[in-house]
């Protein structure tokens, strides 16, 4: 078998499986083996997509969610990277706080959203804030890791040239750590997006997450499924895009 076909076969299998499942569902629902009030037939779901665009303003909602994600990402880039850099620069701080931050990464920070509801109200600010805090430990730790893993010899080169402390940081350590920092930011952005959609869903505010919630409360089954599929699509696209971006940046650095 040629190399081409061995690459395509798995993709074909995957896609075929998806199609078969969809067709199977359509069949089983149409003959009432599966209750159509539990699961609308795929044809209804695809039909509902149109409604999402026309009536539910899904494009607009997408931008709201995207905007919130970017805002959280922006905060993460500043505070997460600065935090990691500070911990690296001051070893004593690192020894004191690194384990605490790792512990915080394991805690369900997002559960404190009702608290932020009280503080910041039922709006985008709460969503962004909660997502930012939930993803922050990961970005800090990844940045710290990036700095720690810089080969010592690079710093020696700087020292042998009598470079100042700041020069060594800005011209050697930071560029060397950048690939890891990007990975951390990508991870943080992903976490942020997941949390944003989740919180939107829970507090019924914002973009796509809220859409799912609203449609479910209206008992519009087909549209609810369609909206969920929309979210899946958006997050997959987002994930792929960030992977591609990281790979491109990696080639340059």
């Amino acid at each position, binding site marked *: 078998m040629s190399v081409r076909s061995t690459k395509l*076969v*798995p*993709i074909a*299998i*995957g896609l075929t*499986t998806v199609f078969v499942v969809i067709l199977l569902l359509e069949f089983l629902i149409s003959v009432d083996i599966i209750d159509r*009030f*539990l*699961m609308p037939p795929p044809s209804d779901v695809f039909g509902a997509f149109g409604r999402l665009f026309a009536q539910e303003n899904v494009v607009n909602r997408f931008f709201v969610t995207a905007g919130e994600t970017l805002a959280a990402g922006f905060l993460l880039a500043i505070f997460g990277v600065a935090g990691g850099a500070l911990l690296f620069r001051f070893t*004593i*701080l690192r020894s*004191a*706080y*690194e384990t605490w931050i*790792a*512990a915080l*990464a*394991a*805690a*369900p*920070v*997002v*559960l*404190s959203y*009702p*608290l932020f*509801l*009280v*503080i910041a109200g039922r709006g985008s600010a709460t969503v962004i804030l909660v997502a930012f805090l*939930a*993803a922050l*430990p*990961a970005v800090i*730790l990844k940045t*710290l*890791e990036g700095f720690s893993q810089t080969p010592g010899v690079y710093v020696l080169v700087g020292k042998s040239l009598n470079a100042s402390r700041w020069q060594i940081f800005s011209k050697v350590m930071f560029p060397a750590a950048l690939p890891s920092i990007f990975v951390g930011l990508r991870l943080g952005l*992903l*976490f942020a*997006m*997941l*949390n944003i*959609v*989740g919180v939107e*869903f*829970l507090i019924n505010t914002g973009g796509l*997450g809220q859409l*799912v*919630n609203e449609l*479910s409360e209206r008992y519009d*089954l087909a549209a*609810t*499924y369609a*909206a*969920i599929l929309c*979210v*899946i699509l958006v*997050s*997959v696209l987002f*994930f*792929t895009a960030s992977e591609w971006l990281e790979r491109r940046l990696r080639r340059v650095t």
Partner: protein
Amino acid sequence: MSSRGQIFGIRLFSVLMVLVLWEIIARSGLLYRDVVPSLIEISMALKNLLSSADTYIHIGWTAWEVALALGIGGIAGIAAGIVLGANDLLRRAYEPYLYYFGATPKLIFFPVMIMWFGIGPSSKIALAAVSCFFPVALSTLSGMRGINPVFLRVGKTFRANLWQTVGKIYLPAMHRPILTGLRLGLGLAVVVTLLAETKLSNQGLGYLVIQAFTIFDMPRMYALLLTIFAFAIGANVLLARLEGGRGGTRVGFSSGY
């Protein structure tokens, strides 16, 4: 001062600073209406919380839901990971789906789960099971791929059958990746369960949190959050120790559900 002493000093200092600042803000009335309650009130609420039998019933509910979810999702995940790890074609066909689908927010499936399983604990268990399935499957899969092929060849030369190969070569090599996957899965299961409970439930810790919010009992909410965080962190540290190796910063991320 030795560095150990310095570290302790810094930690102690920061904790005290936070507590002092907190109390100052609480008493100043700067933030409106109880958003920052006094430490005394929080302590009282914590005491009431932990001394009430009711609390433990709710803890039991959440623990039960999480445990079941981890069991279902975990076993399914391990099975999927093993199957895909063993067969290269299947892996190349389906791993991308696991990978990309794993990166989506599962919480939004809750309405579907409610439709299918009702408004009781089952819907939350189902949701959390779906959530923790992915990290377990992916971790198991990566573990399978990481098994040194030499070991498998050794097994073949001794004519090991399928069960023996699985039991004596695969499983021992897999126990660390599987534990890692379960630890990550546990974190997600906990988060998803709690969040789902805040949305629609009348039992469990999540329910208690949203209830405190509804009646605007902020000290109680803080007490609940502190308790939950302590549990989650503790469980994670414990599991990380069990896993062996550098616990440290490999603690799971509860933010990626």
